[in-house]
């Protein structure tokens, strides 16, 4: 009987999926719910006796404390500028590498080198290069009298921008790769038709390539934005959030509060706020791209 069959099938599917569901719940949902629970407490592992329920106080602190507000603004500045620049650089490079040739393939292979180095090591490399006393770049900059005397990473006005550029150095190639894959998948006949119809290069880019590339752009933007928003390793090793709080980010704050001071409650709240921001950004990106898609492609 079909009714019974569907019942058994459902049971079968459920049993097949159960291990994965249990696994995800154990390592994903459980810590997440714990994190939300802890965030309502003033709870420090070093002072467990003084634990108390504080409601939303941790969240209020995050948004009223000046240092934390700076960290939030820094995180946004870092994300917007590094992902924005990477999108522009990445698109330009992808267009240059679009045509399939041996030279382009070789360039692409080399281009990927920075992305293969862990951000921690990238940070250490740039810290060594930019140091005012021993760094190769830092030494010449200071000899030439360009930039602050104490080095670009130790000046409050330049440090964050240097970190943004370091991020671009490392991650533009990934952006290029995603966009290049998108370009290669474009329907060749459509572009050819555009050329035959006498469209200029700019018109072809604006009216054909860009609209067709929207899904790839969305993918690249989302991936990189979520990643950039969680920036930690490179900041940790280059500036430690300094000078002053000029390069402090949300993740730096969370790690410091959680793993250095063992302020589990406050660190959980910082983690939850970061998560909310990322979810919010992803949603906004999705809406923007969908609206652009509707406007350009009419669907």
């Amino acid at each position: 009987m079909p009714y019974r069959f569907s019942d058994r099938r459902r049971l079968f599917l459920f049993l097949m999926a159960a291990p994965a569901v249990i696994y995800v719940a154990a390592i994903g949902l459980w810590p997440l719910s714990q994190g939300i629970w802890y965030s309502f407490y003033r709870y420090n592992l070093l002072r467990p006796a003084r634990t108390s329920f504080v409601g939303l106080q941790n969240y209020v602190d995050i948004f009223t404390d000046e240092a934390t507000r700076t960290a939030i603004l820094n995180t946004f500045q870092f994300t917007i500028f590094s992902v924005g620049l990477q999108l522009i650089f990445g698109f330009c490079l992808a267009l240059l590498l679009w045509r399939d040739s041996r030279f382009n393939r070789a360039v692409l292979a080399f281009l990927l080198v920075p992305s293969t180095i862990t951000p921690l090591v990238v940070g250490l490399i740039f810290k060594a290069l930019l140091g005012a006393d021993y760094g190769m770049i830092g030494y010449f900059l200071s000899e030439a009298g360009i930039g602050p005397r104490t080095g670009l990473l130790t000046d409050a006005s330049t440090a964050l921008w240097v970190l943004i550029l370091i991020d671009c150095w490392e991650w533009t190639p990934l952006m290029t790769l995603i966009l290049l894959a998108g370009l290669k998948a474009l329907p060749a006949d459509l572009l050819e038709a555009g050329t035959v119809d006498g469209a200029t290069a700019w018109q072809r880019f604006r009216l054909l390539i860009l609209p067709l590339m929207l899904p790839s752009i969305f993918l690249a933007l989302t991936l990189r934005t979520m990643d950039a928003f969680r920036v930690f390793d490179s900041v940790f090793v280059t500036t430690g959030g300094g000078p002053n709080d000029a390069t402090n980010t949300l993740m730096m704050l969370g790690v410091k509060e959680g793993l250095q001071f063992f302020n589990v409650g406050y660190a959980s709240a910082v983690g939850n706020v970061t998560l909310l921001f990322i979810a919010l950004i992803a949603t906004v990106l999705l809406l923007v791209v969908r609206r652009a898609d509707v406007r350009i492609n009419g669907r």
Partner: protein
Amino acid sequence: MALMATTAYTQAKSLDGVTLTIASMNDGFSKVLTELAPAFKEETGADLKVEIMDYGTLLTKTTADFVGDTKGYDLVTMDIVWAGAYAENKYSVDLTDWVKRDAAELDLDDIYPVALKSLGQYDDHYVAFPFAAYANVLAYRKDLLEAAGLKPPASMEELVADAKKLTDPSKKQYGFVANGQKGPAVAQDWMQYNNQLGGSILDKDGKPALNSEANIKSLTVYKELFTEAAPPGAIEYDWGGREESFRQGMSAFMQTWSVGAAAYSDPKVSNIVGKAGIAVAPVAAGMTPQYGVGGWGLAINADIDTSKQEAAWTFIKWVTSKKIHKEFNMLGAGGFMRKSQMTDPDLLAKYDFLPVIAQTYEHGNGEFRPRIPEYPEIQDMLGTAVNSVLAGAATPKEALDKAQEAAEKLF
């Protein structure tokens, strides 16, 4: 067969089959501990496993072990500033009764009181036993001072003036170097200077007094030294960078822990072999001398079984005994704390600066970094405040006012 049985019998030691695991800070002494392990095994039968970690990892892993009651480590090297947290949370075995019981064996009179108190005790209880004390000293360049016709500075005021005199950026020569890096590095170095200039982090009642007049004044001096006499990159130096700049010959004066002194005469890492001198750290003119003392105690994890605790105590007694502790320092651990070590001919032949360390311990102050449970957070607030002053983002008063406001919330 019978012979083997006899040998086995005669070799049976009190701690056969026991393994003691130490969570150790990666400092001069950590390598020495691993070198001493076979001798300990020989004498007692116990295996010694030394897990060496950097400061942050050590704090994180041992705290996780204490909080989770996981008994991962039997012994832990305890930084002097963690004593408050250890005491409040009862992380470690209270050694007070054992110390009393074994006082003669420990030869307590031979250990400097400042080491006994600040490296081991909190509220008159031993949360750890002193193991490697460090003296804060002034390292200076004999050749540069001589060329300028100067003597090692007798006061902080002289130090500041001499440091400025010895600075000549065109020759890449700077008078002074200290930690500038945001975080513990800059906080600890400044607290040291602050102490020598008569400032204090806590008031008489043990409440934070970060923005006291004396503290603001000393931070002003610190900033002045950084802008006028330190290498440009000093604002991002931590302990390693600071020592490197001195060993490379860039800086004339550096206040430092005595543990680094042996490296100045090592041609593999030093450009200034034979040119470095060690003196007691100067204090402000007219002030009673008091010098910074820091270092490490050995604490026993309170979660482990009683028999293990006693085995761990046996190790502590063994490694801090006169004979082994001398060996420990002969091997380069750099943590002197016994009076007898200061006049020991073998040690003196190797370390000619021991009299300076002795003088430092005699007038030692182990409390200039407050050893209270709230210390890590206070250190972080100061680390940000002092760094922001050095970076020119705030005046000493603004920065310390802000830190004080935040510190008050902790109490």
